[in-house]
């Protein structure tokens, strides 16, 4: 089964602010921008609960002082979102196990890692897809070695 885990900063996200100001300077019509680390796992049946508990124990993934971690219901980008990952992948395996930061993830068959950007209007509503595409092509994705997944 697929398990999609999102880790988001709860403190101000300087990277998102820098990206937002750059996009606006480049003429992209976006008023708010959020960023999250996204892990999409293919896990064995019944392993999801243990996986989430394991991730909560990895300080390199999740620090409770500054992060929020949740399991997303959606396995694909929603409105106003673009997920960016590297074409040649970020999965690290050793001894047959998928690993993050050198630590094994029991029950995980495969893992994809994305940076998820959510582009919004001032009201918090998602921007139109053409704006997501413009932001993706202008700044958020380098197609030489990254791929972007939109709604």
């Amino acid at each position: 089964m697929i398990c999609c885990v999102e880790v988001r900063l709860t403190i101000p996200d300087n990277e998102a602010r820098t990206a937002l100001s750059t996009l606006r300077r480049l003429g992209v019509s976006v008023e708010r921008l959020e960023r999250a680390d996204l892990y999409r796992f293919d896990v064995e049946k019944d392993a999801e609960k243990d996986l989430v508990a394991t991730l909560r124990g990895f300080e390199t993934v999740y620090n409770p002082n500054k992060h929020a971690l949740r399991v997303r219901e959606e396995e694909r980008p929603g409105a106003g979102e673009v997920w960016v990952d590297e074409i040649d992948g970020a999965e690290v395996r050793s001894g047959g196990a998928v690993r993050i930061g050198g630590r094994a993830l029991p029950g995980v068959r495969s893992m994809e890692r994305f940076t998820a950007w959510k582009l919004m209007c001032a009201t918090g509503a998602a921007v139109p897809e053409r704006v997501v595409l413009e932001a993706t092509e202008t700044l958020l994705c380098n197609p030489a070695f990254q791929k972007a997944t939109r709604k």
Partner: protein
Amino acid sequence: MSALVGVLIFPGTNSEEETLRACRAAGLDAQLVHWNADLDEVRGYAAYVLPGGFAYEDRVRAGAIAAHDRLMTAVREGEAAGKPVLGICNGAQILLESGLAPGLDGAATTQAGFTRNAPLGKYRSTHVYVKLSVPPQRCTITASLPANAVLPAWASHGEGRLAARPDVLARLRSEGHVAFVYCDARGNVGPEAVPNGSALGAAALVNARGNVLAIMPHPERDAWTYMHHDEERERARGDAAAMLGASGGIALFRGLANALSATAAR
């Protein structure tokens, strides 16, 4: 002193001082230029050097934010006017993100990138050699180097692996955009000399016009013998003058100086 060279500083740049020293040691009248400098003043420089570091903390991607910095307006205009532009490490990443290199078909769009080292994506700091792999005259900055010149440098990056679509890589090779490849001290090339899994073994790219050079390893960190990493430094031990003598990395900065002198003479 030759023509005025701007060594550009973005927030997070950290190699500007040693780059400035190497420029000056090569006879260039170089100055540091901060990101908030007056753009008209920046336009007055005869050449630009983008040093290493972590411009804008590598936010979004290495070089991605700086590629859109207002300072780059002057660099783009300068490139179009034929001014030499040298980017080192993070400076090279900025040039690729900005599209100034490789600039296939003259397009200023991102066509390649330096991304996470292979195979494990880890940062590496290691002494390397790079070999000129295009005719010297192909690039303004290398025009005064001998053919197949081998230069020492320090690779110091987590994202130095050239990556691009297969068709782009084929064109980079066939159209002479791979200016330097990694090699051993004798100039032998091969996968074992490549510290980061870079496609084509590439250490540096040159643009179509030949006036932009984006090089990942740091020649300015092997510009004096005391920075060097083989028997040359060992021979210099106890001899201050020899230890402070020029090492091979300075050649690239002399190349820039020669390019500007040649331009001034025309």
